């Protein structure tokens, strides 16, 4: 405990000497070597007493004390500390919404039903105070998704330390988001209908609308395309395999229908939400469909369900061999910073810590198709990683001392830490 307090004093002191924290870091010019740390690779393995070297934004060496890695450039002694690959927030609204209740600050829902041509990166606010608050918790990359209508638009993947959306983007237009029709509807009590859920009688026709839109798109794309149709044009990447189809769906029936739909149309599909995916793991596995589960800090959907179903849901999928990650779900934007703890929660359910780590690193990188750059601490990958005082999946230990995006030493300060210091100092003086 004394140690923690000491660390705090040091942090405070060091913080008060820095300035302009929100300014994006400069490009990596000098090699950086971090030594003596426990490296959580992100693929399920751990390297004790490890060393990482990165140059020009890429990792050039990783190994333990026996691997004779030569320290280069700026050497950071991280003895007793932990190194993690940067956590990846999938399906977030980061940068699209600043304050939930202030409509003027909200850009996540465009009007219209089938609007795949709408692109999230355009509205991404690189200087969002919410975005910067992700970094001190280890979230260094995020997929930013729109979420209105039936086909909501196109998402992009951003790194979270940038001047504007152009230098923020890591992978532009990575996929299209589809809100699968729900099997249940809510009674419109204001029209005198009984409240609560009942089977959606329009489910079939709503699914048909999606199926028809895809058919129309395909027909259009085979044609001469002399009269441009923007929504149909935007669908092309789904058919040539360059984009993924993110299907937001939670129930067993919907997931089954959506998988069949995607397979029939030859699209690379990802389930987002997937609350009941654990009931159809066979189908998901045989079709290689990964699942991005809603975060674990949620309540069971029904009274009868196990109180810890949301806690163990990722484990149920992982045990069945389905590729699974966790995302913030429909939680408020700012909650994305709790991503590591969503993963930590699964450890209490019997998943190994390193496997839980995969849920927010390598698995997500694979699911989003950026695993050639991110997700693990391996040679050749982007030097997007951080150093923590303790176990970063646990609130008690998640305490970042350094973080790097593409080798750039980014600031861990935020609007919030500034206020903290301001008032901390006020009372220190009293």
């Amino acid at each position, binding site marked *: 405990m004394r140690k923690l307090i000491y660390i705090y004093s040091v942090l405070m002191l060091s913080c008060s000497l820095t300035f302009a924290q929100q300014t994006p870091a400069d490009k990596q010019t000098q090699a950086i070597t971090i030594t003596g740390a426990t490296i959580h690779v992100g693929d399920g393995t751990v390297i004790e007493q490890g060393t990482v070297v990165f140059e020009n934004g890429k990792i050039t060496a990783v190994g333990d004390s026996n691997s004779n890695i030569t320290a280069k450039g700026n050497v950071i002694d991280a003895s007793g500390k932990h190194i993690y690959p940067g956590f990846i927030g999938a399906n977030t609204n980061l940068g699209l919404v600043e*304050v939930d*209740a202030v409509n003027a600050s909200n850009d996540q829902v465009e009007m219209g039903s089938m609007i795949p041509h709408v692109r999230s990166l355009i509205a991404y606010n690189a200087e969002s105070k919410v975005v910067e608050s992700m970094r001190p918790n280890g979230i260094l990359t995020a997929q930013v998704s729109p979420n209105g209508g039936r086909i909501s638009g196109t998402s992009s993947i951003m790194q979270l330390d940038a001047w504007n959306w152009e230098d923020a983007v890591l992978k532009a237009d990575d996929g299209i988001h589809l809100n699968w029709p729900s099997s*249940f509807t809510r009674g419109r009590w204001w029209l005198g209908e009984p409240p609560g859920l*009942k089977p959606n009688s329009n489910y079939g026709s709503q699914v048909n609308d999606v199926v028809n839109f895809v058919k129309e798109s395909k027909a259009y794309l085979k044609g001469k395309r002399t009269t441009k149709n923007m929504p149909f044009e935007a669908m092309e990447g789904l058919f040539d395999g360059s984009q993924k189809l993110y299907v937001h769906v939670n129930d067993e029936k919907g997931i089954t229908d959506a998988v069949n739909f995607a397979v029939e149309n030859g699209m690379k599909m990802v389930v987002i939400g997937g609350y009941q995916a654990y009931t159809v793991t066979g189908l998901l596995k045989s079709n290689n469909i990964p699942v991005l589960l809603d975060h674990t*800090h949620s309540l069971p959907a029904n009274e*009868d369900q196990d109180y810890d179903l949301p806690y163990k849901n990722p484990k149920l999928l992982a045990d069945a061999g389905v590729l699974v990650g966790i995302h913030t779900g429909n939680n408020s934007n700012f909650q994305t910073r709790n991503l590591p703890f969503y993963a930590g929660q699964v450890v209490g359910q019997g998943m190994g810590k390193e496997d839980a780590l995969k849920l927010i690193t390598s698995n997500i990188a694979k699911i989003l198709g950026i695993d050639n750059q991110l997700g693990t601490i391996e040679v050749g990958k982007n030097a997007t990683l951080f150093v923590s005082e303790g176990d970063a999946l646990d609130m008690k230990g998640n305490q970042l001392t350094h973080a790097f995006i593409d080798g750039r030493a980014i600031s861990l300060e935020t609007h919030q830490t500034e206020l*903290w210091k301001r008032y901390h100092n006020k009372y220190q003086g009293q």
Partner: protein
Amino acid sequence: MIKKYLILMMLLCTFSLMAQEHVPKNDGVKSINTNYTVFTNAKIYVTPTQVIDKGTLLIHNGKVVATGTTVNIPVNAVVIDVSGKSIYPSFIDLYSSFGVEKPKRQNGGSRYDANREGFYWNDHIRPEQNAVDYFEYDSKTATALRKAGFGVVNTHLQDGIMRGTGALVALTNEGGNGERILNDRSADYLSLSKSVKTSQSYPSSLMGTLALIRQVHHDADWYAKGGITIKDRSLEAFNKNKGIVKIIAAGSKINALRVDKVGDEFNTQYVILGGGDEYERIKDIKATNASFILPLNFPKAYDVEDTFAASVLDLSTMREWNQRPSNPKALADNGITFSFTVDGLKSPDMLNANIMKAIEYGLDKTKALEALTTVPAQILGQPNKIGSLKNGAYANFLITSGELFNKGTKIYENWVKGERNVINDMTVKDIDGDYAFTMAGTTYDISISGSSSKPKADVKSNGKQLGAKITYKDNWVNLTFTSTDTTKQEFMRFTSRVNQGDNLSGKLIDPNGNSVFVVAQKASNDDGKGNEMTKRGGKAKDVKMVPVTYPNGAYGVSQLPKQETVLFKNATVWSNESDGILKNTDVLIKEGKIAKIGTNLSNRNATVVDATGKHLTAGIIDEHSHLAAASINEGGQNSSAEVTIEDVLDPEDIGIYRNLAGGVTSIQILHGSANPIGGRSAIIKLKWGESADGLINKNAPKFIKFALGENVKQSRSQNGTRFPRTRMGVEQLFIDNFTRAKEYDAKKKNGQPFRYDLEMETLAEILNGERFISCHSYVQSEINMMMKVAERFGFKMNTFTHILEGYKVADIMKEHGVGASTFSDWWAYKYEVNDAIPYNASIMHNVGITTAINSDDGEMSRRLNQEAAKTMKYGGVSEEDAWKMVTLNPAKLLHIDNRVGSIKVGKDADVVLWSDNPLSVYAKAEKTMIEGATYFDIEKDKQMRLKIKQERSELMSMMLQEKNKGMKTQPIKVKEKQLLHCDSMD
């Protein structure tokens, strides 16, 4: 069909019509019929328990003159021989809207003021309404009610919280309302639903409704004393109605308990319209001493063929289908007085089938009959006039083919005030039964049912089903059926005159036009209705009913956990006392208390729990929760100090169980933040399985919720008309209210007469230091303001809850002496949390403020241990201090730290055993105890999961069987329990 009956009845009725001597007659001579009518050889139920075999019933002028075996029959009597038939008093329904049209809903946005003048200030209080002023006889509904067996109903205007008087109406077609209305102030009705004639927003919640009912009592009293100088017709009516029976539509067991409590406060015993779920809390229901009016709308089975849809069906909902028919029996077994109503049924027709269902579930037939006759008569104070056939009672009776509530028993006639109404013609011969004849070597089997009302025929030949149609009228049967050659569209026609004998004989015409005389022999198996009644007594059929639990759904318990003597061995004990965190320590729990803490403890009677490697802590306390309540906000007024969450506790919220699984043992359920002065809190312990009253922590002091900022000034509503709209106005509202409360209190203390005001009473308690405030607050300006207002009126703020900018004014807070209860890391959800920082708790803590971490959220509350750990991450709070933020500190803020919040000898044994360091995200609560009783156990939870799975499939297969039997089913629906937050407008 109905039309036919109407004509028939009108013809039959004329002879009983009574001419009145003061009414002139211009369409003929005044003819007064003074004849008697006498029924002989009947089994007469004078009351359900006083039965005369082969008796005589003599009626005259619409009343019973005599019943018995030796009745003198006057010479001018029309004699009706009803040998073999039974006579019962006709039924009474106490909860009806017969002839009183339901008002249409008024459109228009919500408003804060009443739209009436000269009445009570609240439009939903309408005791001045009298059903008789709205009554218009509805002959169609009357016919349907008589068909079901009813003779009189107590009708009322079903609109408003106080609805005014009802009228007791006889269902006679003739004679006009003068004849029909037996009593125009027969009962005084109340409900928990608002009037649709107004859009006045108060009360917007159930707790507001209950508070309003109380305030009306006080205001009526004040009015009677002359304290109100203007005319108030509502209060006048309320006072006038005082002496008559009060019937309140509660609609559920839990509401029944709620309204009964309010009634008790004013020495009023309500008669309660129940919900059919009373059996789930039968002991508490009995303790109300109330009489109940029970609906009989038993749920239909759910259609569970679609496995996806069925998966969302809750056990509690399925149990309703399985168990609800047992409700009347449960009341009967517990000696609770009840009557039946057809309210809630699609049609009164369903009464008989549903009562028969209740009888299958073990309800005694006599009880069922009493519930329709003597009991409602008694409730209305008219036992000698209705509900029986005692001398002098109205001649309201049924003539039936046999014992009521037996399969096949028919009501032939329903006489109301001596007026005859034919339901099924008893002179028409019953030809129900199985017949057979052979023609040209082919045997035809005919089965006829429903012959006296809606005849149906089923024709088979050698087991092959043939299409068939039957008519039966004026003693002639016409039966058409298809020929055995189903490839052709050919018909056979059979016509028979019904004679004395059992067989049907007549002409049969085949498809070729050939006509033959055939005799259809009636099968001899005596399946007659006569025997049916002896075959089925009031004995329970083989009904499979799943057991009731508390609460009656998943994870409910069949028995409340008992206090145990438990010895935790070798635990890491987080004492929260000066001892700090004790390693390898034993803790003995005995008689609900922490008895001993030490090493090498032993106790012969104790169950020993090996806690090696585990952590034992005090139970978590959530200062700010909205679980376990039916409503959270009363936003209909800018001050709602009159409402209390204790009125609307919901002990069945599954959130209670889930919170126990997260190590939570105590919570404060706060009113929401819809208005600056909110409602009073409930401080409860999470005793899953208890009744609402059993949850309340009786040792906790009184609290109230205040709120500041965006929510109370209705920032997100475009067209708000409620004061205040700015933070400037919020201050003025407090000053106004406390100024008035001070004046009120002074008046009271000086012994001057005063209007008892629930709001002012509550605020005066604050001024007198008898009630504490927990104030929802965000930005520094308003926090500062609130403390200044308190100081001006000489009291101290107890807690600022949320308090996200508390770090900016921590020094001022410290000086004022207020505590803080905050979120660990919430922000960015609205404008006023722009400067909310996760370091808030640590800064306030470091300044020396008693700081707690709260949830305001039914999900986060079950992980408050993790939220506490975030204060280590954000601001470096020590482990011990972090843990206190969800245990000892909230206990201090709630002033219950003398009993809970730490592991100290003598304190309540509210403890949790954790698998790991409780501040770790990896820790799981394995055992949660409250006062020495185990309310959550991770091993028991596993067993319950298995049981739930079994019972679900058992009930589903029962429902599938029901569907296969051809019974009607209903589509799946899921009741959603809304997760309530500060902002929830409920």
